[in-house]
């Protein structure tokens, strides 16, 4: 299955991805997640690969049935409040992404990176975690921050780089960070957060804290997540990994080390099929990421990343497993990067438009989850449009407010390089101020001195 998956064309990849979804929902119906053996076994879907007839675009009815089964298996854990909360956050994330993307296109912000297609991963995984869990994100996980309470205004402040930005305007947009929400600032470097998560887990283990770290990464990278144990608080160090970071050396060493140290870390790999323009079969020839976890002795599981309930369930159980059994866990979430890599990218140059459209339409995680909560009677069209217009209004207000706020002062260019500015930096600052004063007309006036 692995080789067939990787050597086929993109169309076939899509099909096999769909087949995996079918398989996963069946598996979820029948099995529990907690036992090690389940986690270690990668899923072989040889028998399902031929059921491509079920994977045609008109498999809505079959799919719907599977989703109901999926829902049933975890529905006892999901209260109405949680479900509605998750859904509204997913919608907020989607609207936020759309509006900020538009703002970039209009030239109001310099850069943006959307999470379109991965809303379920963002929100559902965050929902299964505790606020005390340290998150080591890659860059496509602002939904976790959103879930934890980062306001739309705070997002806007960061992308506009104004003086209210917690990063003091020093980083590119989408490089959010919040110490109080235990979300480590995004660094542009790929996979460097993986060993950080291991270190954080080590730190927690030293403190004997019952928590864990979580790290997210994509298919291009691998990051590791460490769990630290903290008394009476269970938090996870959650690491988001892109597929593309998996190929970085940091991933392998960190995963290996987490296994050796028995550090409770959740490695969450967002396998979205693309590393900018490189498709998955140009990235790796193994059976995805799950086998790599197994190779390092880490319990691993593959999940349908577009099924919010599946992601919630997986992270929930992984967290419990990691903390109780003191082991790292690798979760590979299959999904699709429905948007472009970032505003500097036009993905129609390397993939067919109808492929993108199909994923946006039928496999949209937001739509799928909406159908589920609607069948439960917890949501309706009115609440949907009300929520969406509400968020749009809040966002435009936030953007307008953020645009008007002045930028961070010149002093912030030299602060925080060290704890106290050394002499040479003070001299350089004085020189810069003198230069600006002398040529006041050459410099922008919106940066306060």
């Amino acid at each position, binding site marked *: 299955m692995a080789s067939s998956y990787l050597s086929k064309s993109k169309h076939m990849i899509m099909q096999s991805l769909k087949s995996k979804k079918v398989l996963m929902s069946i598996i979820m119906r029948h099995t529990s997640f907690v036992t090690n053996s389940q986690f270690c076994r990668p899923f072989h879907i040889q028998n399902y690969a031929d059921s491509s007839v079920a994977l045609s675009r008109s498999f809505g009815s079959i799919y719907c049935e599977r989703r109901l089964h999926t829902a049933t298996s975890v529905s006892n854990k999901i209260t109405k409040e949680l479900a509605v909360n998750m859904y509204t956050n997913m919608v907020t994330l989607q609207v936020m992404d759309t509006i900020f993307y538009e703002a970039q296109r209009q030239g109001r912000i310099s850069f943006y990176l959307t999470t379109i297609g991965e809303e379920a991963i963002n929100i559902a995984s965050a929902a299964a975690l505790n606020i005390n869990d340290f998150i080591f994100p890659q860059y496509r996980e602002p939904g976790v921050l959103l879930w934890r309470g980062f306001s739309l205004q705070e997002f806007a402040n960061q992308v506009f780089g104004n003086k209210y930005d917690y990063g003091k305007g020093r980083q590119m947009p989408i490089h959010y960070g919040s110490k109080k929400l235990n979300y480590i600032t995004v660094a542009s470097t790929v996979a460097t957060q993986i060993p950080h998560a291991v*270190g954080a887990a080590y*730190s927690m283990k030293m403190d004997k804290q019952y928590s864990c770290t979580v790290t997210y990464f994509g298919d291009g990278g691998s990051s590791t997540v460490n769990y630290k144990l903290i008394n009476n608080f269970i938090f996870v160090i959650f690491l988001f990994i892109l597929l593309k970071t998996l190929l970085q050396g940091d991933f392998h060493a960190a995963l290996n080390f987490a296994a050796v140290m028995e550090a409770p870390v959740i490695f969450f790999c967002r396998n979205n099929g693309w590393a900018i323009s490189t498709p998955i079969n140009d990235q790796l020839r193994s059976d995805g990421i799950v086998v790599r976890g197994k190779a390092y002795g880490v319990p691993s599981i593959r999940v349908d990343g577009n099924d919010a309930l599946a992601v919630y369930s997986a992270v929930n159980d992984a967290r419990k497993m990691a903390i109780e059994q003191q082991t790292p866990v690798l979760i590979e979430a299959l999904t699709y990067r429905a948007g472009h890599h970032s505003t500097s990218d036009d993905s129609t140059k390397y993939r067919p438009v109808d492929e993108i459209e199909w994923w946006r339409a039928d496999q949209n995680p937001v739509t799928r989850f909406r159908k589920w909560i609607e069948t439960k009677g917890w949501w309706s069209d009115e609440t949907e449009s009300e929520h969406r217009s509400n968020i749009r209004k809040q966002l435009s207000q936030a953007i307008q407010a953020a645009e008007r706020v002045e930028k961070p002062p010149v002093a912030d260019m030299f602060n925080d390089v060290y704890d106290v500015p050394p002499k040479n930096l003070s001299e350089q600052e004085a020189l810069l101020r003198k230069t600006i004063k002398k040529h006041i007309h050459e410099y922008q006036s919106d940066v306060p001195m």
Partner: protein
Amino acid sequence: MASIFQVIGAATAAVSSSTSFDTKKFQLCSRRSVSERKSSFVVVKASGSNRIGSRADQLVTNAVATKADTPPAASKPGHELLLFEALREGLEEEMERDARVCVMGEDVGHYGGSYKVTKGLADKYGDLRVLDTPIAENSFTGMGIGAAMTGLRPIIEGMNMGFLLLAFNQISNNCGMLHYTSGGQFKIPVVIRGPGGVGRQLGAEHSQRLESYFQSIPGIQMVACSTPYNAKGLMKAAIRSDNPVILFEHVLLYNLKERIPDEEYVLNLEEAEMVRPGEHVTILTYSRMRYHVMQAAKTLVNKGYDPEVIDIRSLKPFDLYTIGNSIKKTHLVLIVEECMRTGGIGASLTAAINENFNDYLDAPIVCLSSQDVPTPYAGTLEEWTVVQPPQIVAAVEQLCR
């Protein structure tokens, strides 16, 4: 930055001891250098910025203040130890003082470290606090950074500085930058240390001078130790500093013996050390080259010259105050370093001095450094690649003419 000043009494005791290097013995000029140091100490404090001064006031209470004029004791005060033991002592004292301090590196645990700097610590503090890591420098440096961001104060040991080239990504992109890019939310109080420099036939890959590669990284501090006294003091200061500090040790200096004070002392990370005051020429050096310079100084004194030798210690940022005062006195500068000619510490120091003290120089700065070649394995060739005392003597004679 940490601005903990030297304890004067401790300096007296330390300086009066003899330091042995191989079979040669040097007498560090005790009384004169102490008084020099005392005066520079006072002046620096007075002219330093208010902020640094006030922080020093807070921190000095930790150090033991001894009387300025300690009478020469019949039984020498302090205890004698080797440089690697001094490092260990500093490390151990800090681990005792602060439970957040931990060590990670290859073979630091039960093996005690390749140069025995962490010997015995794993037995005392446990396997988790003195952690053996797999051979993945980038990853365990990253681990240290992650641990630092979540509250620990790790010391990351590279078995050889050259291996830290693998960790360059983490050191530059994350160590140096994360405090800044997170808007000050996350601080990275790591100490990255390890032996570097040209050893005895270790081969090109294990004889690198990483200080020249790291010196541009914003956000980090670099210090180089050269004696057991300053090794312990700098180690402690580096651990207490909230900034990421890279502490450069030298492979050949680990067995230096010196008598150091019993009392606790912490040195200033940004201060240079006056090794031998003089009038004719300022010789700036650090790490192993200090001993080559002192050897050359003996010859120079016999020939009638009076060199002023300063161990710059702080490689980033440079202590331009001490260096400047010296230049204003002698007007001639010779830099002796182990780095390569291109882009080394000497090159940066030359540029910094030229920019700041050009008016005080009587002659262009002379910089003696290694050639731009990978260090050869053959013993003779390796010796020729490092600056030797006769070259230093010749350079001073040339300068002073």
